């Protein structure tokens, strides 16, 4: 297998892995990492509180819908979540990097093939 072809295969594998990582970490829009500010904005509910409120009828009926939540965790996003290096990781930047490398390899191998054909025809 030529170098260019190897690059294409590796690139495709990297993109596939990146897509799997994106799905596995919640298919979020922006890459994010564990965030201390988010961690400080919440705390585990005191044990026993839920039972207490359930007995008091606080959680009865449709009104008692759970609060939406966001956890402090890593999520590999569709696009970068910030300008710092770890937030630049994303599906889009991965695809872009692979596309650049594969595209360069493709163009180089085509150019090389065209030159080889020209050399051969002149020799003949």
């Amino acid at each position, binding site marked *: 297998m030529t170098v260019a072809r190897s690059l294409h295969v590796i690139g495709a594998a990297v993109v596939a892995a990146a897509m799997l990582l994106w799905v596995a970490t919640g298919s979020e*829009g*922006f890459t*994010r990492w564990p*965030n*201390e*500010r*988010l*961690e*400080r*904005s*919440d*705390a*585990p*509910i*005191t*044990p*026993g*509180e839920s039972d*207490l*409120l359930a*007995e*008091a*009828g*606080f959680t*009865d009926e449709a*009104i*008692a*819908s759970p*609060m*939406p*939540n*966001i956890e*402090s965790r890593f999520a590999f996003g569709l*696009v*970068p*979540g*910030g*300008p710092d290096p770890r*937030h*630049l990781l994303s599906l*889009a*930047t991965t695809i*872009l990097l692979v*596309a*650049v490398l594969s*595209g*360069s390899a493709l*163009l*180089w191998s085509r*150019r*090389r093939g065209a*030159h080889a054909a*020209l*050399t051969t025809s*002149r020799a003949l």
Partner: protein
Amino acid sequence: MTASLRCDRRSHSLGAPRLAIASLAGLLPVAVLATAAALAADPPATKPPASCAEPQPPQSLPEGTIVYRTLSGREAQVTFTSAAPLERIVGKSNGIVGFALAGPADEPARLAGATWVLPVATLATGLPLRDEHMISSAWLDAGAHPDIRFELTRVDAIRELKRGEDFTTWSGTLVGRMTLHGVSREMQVPDARFSFLKESARTRAIAPGNLLFLKCDYAIKLSDFGIRHADVPGKVSDSVSLSQMLRLSSATPDAIRKAAPAPSPPSATAP
């Protein structure tokens, strides 16, 4: 012919890098635009305080009025959601401070008044860059308006839902004034849920004193409070949903502080 071949080889050996550079030159603008769009920055925000002075109840209160003080710095008290076509944003805060004045003994849900204040700088969405944008002058402008304030004037449509030996649970409509981004508006929050619990061994695991739990869900429009931005409504919804769960205690502030869990260590990323 050899010389011409040599010339061809030299031109070819310079041609591959040129092609690579050309392909990069073609793709880079796309990459730059996409990354720039993702990282579109508003003017850097000044750092407002992450806490504020706790509002105090009036000096003179009718005899027997029970003052409930908000327990903050613990579980999340408010979660907001912006569901826009291009982006869904969820954020939360446990920085709400304030008080509520219970109503008469037979109808404590008829609150005699309440004031709650949320420091804007305590809102967190999980993305440092987005948090900076949120408090910038283009959005909530925390530098000029560091707090979001709600002052309750009355509770309407009060309905008792359940009563027990040590508790009563009610629903009602909160009526009051919300101040956000320097703009004050009358607001009604229907279907708020209140539970008043007398102090017991089980409630002391949460906090000393009698407890009041207050839950409500409502929505506000950013445009109603003078917040307008090119990202609305594509990336940020004009209508933001809020879900609140407040825990309040009738204990004194000192008793609450003594019984509070140990604070988490400060971080380098603290605002």
